[in-house]
């Protein structure tokens, strides 16, 4: 009887450990999917910033911005200080690097759990070549 109890205890320990490992793996797989979504949103922010700068250097205003697509004409514009889509909040920070160069940092945040915030960032330097 004692041997049976001991064997059952060992089995339970093994099962608990395996279950814990599986939970971590599951969570990491889901998290990698969310991170991929966040990176795609950040990359879109980078492309939009390039498009705005190409249109007009002065439209690439310093400060924190959100993105929106104007209706007429349909093109990317800065609006507000951030934009939110499907639980992801994107902020585009534009700062001056030198007189002809601006640094663009796109920050995307989301909440994988209510008590936790995750962030991805992408940055880019843009130069106003029209002044050369």
């Amino acid at each position, binding site marked *: 009887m004692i041997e049976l109890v001991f064997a059952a205890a060992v089995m339970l320990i093994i099962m608990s450990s395996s279950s814990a490992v599986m939970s971590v793996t*599951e969570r990491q797989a889901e998290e990698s999917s969310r991170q991929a979504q966040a990176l795609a949103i950040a990359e879109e922010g980078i492309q939009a910033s390039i498009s705005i700068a190409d249109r007009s250097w002065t439209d690439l205003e310093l400060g924190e911005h959100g993105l929106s697509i104007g209706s007429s004409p349909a093109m990317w514009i800065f609006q507000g200080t951030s934009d939110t889509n499907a639980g992801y909040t994107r902020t585009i920070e534009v700062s001056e690097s030198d007189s002809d160069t601006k640094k663009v940092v796109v920050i995307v945040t989301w909440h994988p759990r209510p008590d936790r915030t995750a962030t991805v960032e992408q940055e880019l330097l843009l130069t106003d070549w029209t002044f050369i």
Partner: protein
Amino acid sequence: MIRRGVTIIETVMYVAVLVIMTGILLAFTISLMTRSAKVRAVIEVNQNVEFAMEKIAATVRNSKDATAPADGGGTGPILTLTMPEAAKSPTIFALTEGVLTMQEGSGPAVPITSAGARVTGLNFQNLVDPVAHARTSSSWIPCKKEEYNGWWFGVCCYKGKDKCWDVVSAWIHVFVLRDAKLGSCLVATAAKSVIRYQLTVSAPAAAVGAEWGSSATFYGAATIPRQN
């Protein structure tokens, strides 16, 4: 020597414990297999999405023009690109029965996502061409012209300095080009069209749980470079 046997009660107890342990083990194994399938499904979806997004972006960057959706904000589930190589033109991205396909020229529509990721939504938007800035530069002067592989490249050099800029790469968004007729150098922006795309994918069955959601939408954008 008297050997003690096993009573009926003890036998019943042993069998009962064995049955309980077997049930627990079976339930655990099923749970493990289900969760393992879920992890595999999520990984496969991620891999499919990553490949599809990169494929669309790379093809857009290598294209000359987008004919669908229409310029100026047009949207639609089909992206039609004009490619530099005639054999690959047009290149069409479309959604067919949950699979993202790519068709080059008159070739067949090739799936670029697998059965492991069901594409439930696909949308493209052709944003307005940025206004091209082009003005004659006083700082850059024509230096020389070179021919390479049938293409003519004008080289402009920065006056008084060793810096030269070739009109070669379609990847840079601003370049200096030599105007063959005027014999001067123009400073111009190179962006032409910006294609915004969104891809909604889900695992094919109930492989993923409610916490991941039934589907996920991925966003991307790529620029068609200005052509010389």
